[in-house]
């Protein structure tokens, strides 16, 4: 250890390396911590520092990384490496030009960014995305702590819009080791739901099959819906394709005498969604570890519970109400919460303290607005997933929300 120490000390002295001081300093700080002491009162300070603060986010993300490696293979590691290298290069260049320390925030951006990418994403797209995100989302505003938008999401948004063909078409089926099947390209649960719901009836009360309706499709979103539906005993269901959301509806429908097994398809099961056997972005599929990671962060006081709770709550309530009246457009609540990147976004990205409001009321407002926007974009626009859009939009609104909250909080007292 002393060898490294003396090496570092020597490196500081080398005249040619003065430009690379930020790199040496960063390595030094990570390896050895600081020897600075307090100058004035308080003479003793808390042990928390930004490095540990940020490393806890990474710690909370590690299970998700492990899950994605498990489900999508070692390519995930390559993607993460590319992300760290490309983004790190931008960070280092800006640190060298701006002559400031390398800040720790990049550690998170570099890891979160690959986790929201599709597993089939080409490496050069990863590099473009992370470079754009770090540069335009963060460094141009002055670096960590000074950014307005979540850099990882800015990068992801950019490549989503720039390369729609690459980013939204190819979703890899997670490896299911029990089935021993090869990787296949399929749609995400949200995509499946959207296309099926658009093509046929959703939760009809009466299903009838007429001769002229070839390839009729019906979608049941819950066991209760199957129950409610009067499966007309007179009708034949041979030509009707019946899709079910979740195991409950599937089993209920399968029990029915008049429905043939061959006509019945289960879109996905909630269990698979939770565990991560459904396709999706690399890090967001295994919801159970994400929830655990998120709760861990909240417990550690690194993230605040207000945003995820209000975000998920709003999505749930809106979907509950919306699904009742517009089942064609709005997916059922539990499905909405577990599908797509919502859980990951709510737990790890919306909670970013730098880009979300710092006032309490503002946090609720942020969460609720994110929820509304997510449901809106998922249900009514051409995009299947709305989490990243809604979070970036709300990032933009954050200063305005804070200003308005402060205006009310510090209203001049009436005299």
């Amino acid at each position, binding site marked *: 250890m002393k060898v490294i120490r003396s090496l570092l000390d020597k490196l500081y002295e080398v005249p040619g390396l003065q430009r690379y001081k930020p790199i040496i300093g960063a390595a030094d700080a990570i390896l050895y911590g600081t020897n600075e002491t307090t100058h004035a009162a308080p003479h003793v300070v808390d042990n928390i520092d930004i490095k540990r603060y940020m490393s806890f986010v990474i710690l909370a993300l590690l299970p998700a990384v492990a899950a994605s490696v498990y489900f999508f293979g070692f390519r995930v590691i390559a993607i993460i490496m590319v992300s760290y290298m490309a983004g790190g290069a931008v960070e280092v260049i800006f640190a060298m030009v701006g002559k400031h320390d390398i800040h720790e925030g990049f550690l998170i951006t570099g890891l979160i960014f690959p986790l929201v990418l599709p597993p089939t994403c080409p490496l050069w797209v990863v590099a473009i995305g992370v470079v754009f995100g770090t540069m335009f989302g963060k460094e141009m505003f002055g670096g960590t702590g000074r950014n307005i938008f979540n850099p990882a999401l800015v990068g992801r948004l950019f490549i989503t*819009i*720039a390369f729609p063909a690459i980013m939204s078409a190819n979703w890899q089926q997670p490896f299911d080791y029990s089935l021993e099947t090869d990787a296949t390209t399929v749609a995400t649960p949200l995509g499946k739901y959207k296309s099926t719901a658009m093509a046929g009836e959703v939760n009809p009360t009466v299903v009838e099959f007429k001769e002229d309706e070839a390839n009729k499709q019906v979608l049941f979103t819950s066991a209760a819906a199957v129950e409610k539906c009067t499966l007309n005993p007179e009708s034949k269901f041979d030509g009707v394709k019946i899709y079910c959301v979740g195991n409950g509806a599937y089993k209920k429908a399968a029990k029915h005498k008049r429905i043939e097994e061959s006509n019945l398809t289960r879109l996905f099961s909630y269990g698979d969604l939770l565990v991560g056997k459904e396709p999706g972005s690399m890090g967001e599929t295994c919801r159970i570890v994400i929830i655990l990671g998120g709760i861990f962060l909240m417990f550690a006081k690194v993230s605040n519970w207000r945003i995820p709770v209000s975000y998920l709550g709003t999505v749930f309530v809106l979907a509950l109400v919306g699904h009742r009246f517009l089942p064609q457009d709005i997916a059922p609540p539990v499905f909405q919460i577990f599908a797509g990147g919502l859980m990951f976004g709510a737990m790890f990205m919306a909670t970013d303290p730098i880009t979300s409001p710092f006032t309490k009321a503002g946090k609720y407002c942020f969460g609720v607005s994110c929820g509304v926007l997510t449901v809106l974009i998922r249900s009514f626009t051409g995009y299947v997933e709305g989490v990243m859009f809604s979070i970036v939009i709300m990032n933009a609104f954050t200063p305005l929300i804070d200003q308005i909250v402060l205006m009310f909080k510090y209203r001049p007292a009436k005299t």
Partner: protein
Amino acid sequence: MFLKKYLGADGYKILKLGITRDHPIFAVGLGICSALAVSNTVANAIAMGAGVTFVLVATAVIISSLRSMIPQRARIITYMITIASFVIIVQMFLDAFSPTISEALGPYVALIITNCIIMGRAEAFYVTNGVRLSVIDAVSNGIAYTYTLVAIAVVREILGFGTLLGFQVTPDGWPKWVVMSMAPGAFFLLGVAIWISKTITEGGSEEEEE
């Protein structure tokens, strides 16, 4: 250098500064709307640039020659009517010779009227200077505006469509950066362009000081 001879020292100076340091878009921040909106393809950019340059020059001639006759109170309205008339000419010209470009530019041709460059130059320069200098200034601003537009358009067209002036220039497998042909691409490119140009001019002036 023969330019200097033809234009005279002051005219040459105005021409040079208009293109470099007093660049209407970078230095003064005028005319950003159309610089963003029509720089998606090079053809549009050239058409727009030519249109704006034409209107600038024509306005410069009219305003600077009539400058003593324009009543102070009706100044802005006079400029507007003058500019609008020439814009109509540009619109008619485009309609007649290149309907595709005219359609692509859409309402932005009409919006040359409110292009801040023309109004700004009229208010700041043409009312106080003679015809010769005004025309030089108009040309220099028109050139500056056009080359910026074209420069941005080249990047946007190559990245966004893979073409240059309609000819394919990228290999077949080239993935198109769709975002570049949309509004955000324009914002980002112009932002970066402003950054680069400001850094260059500031660096330059610092060198001069030394």
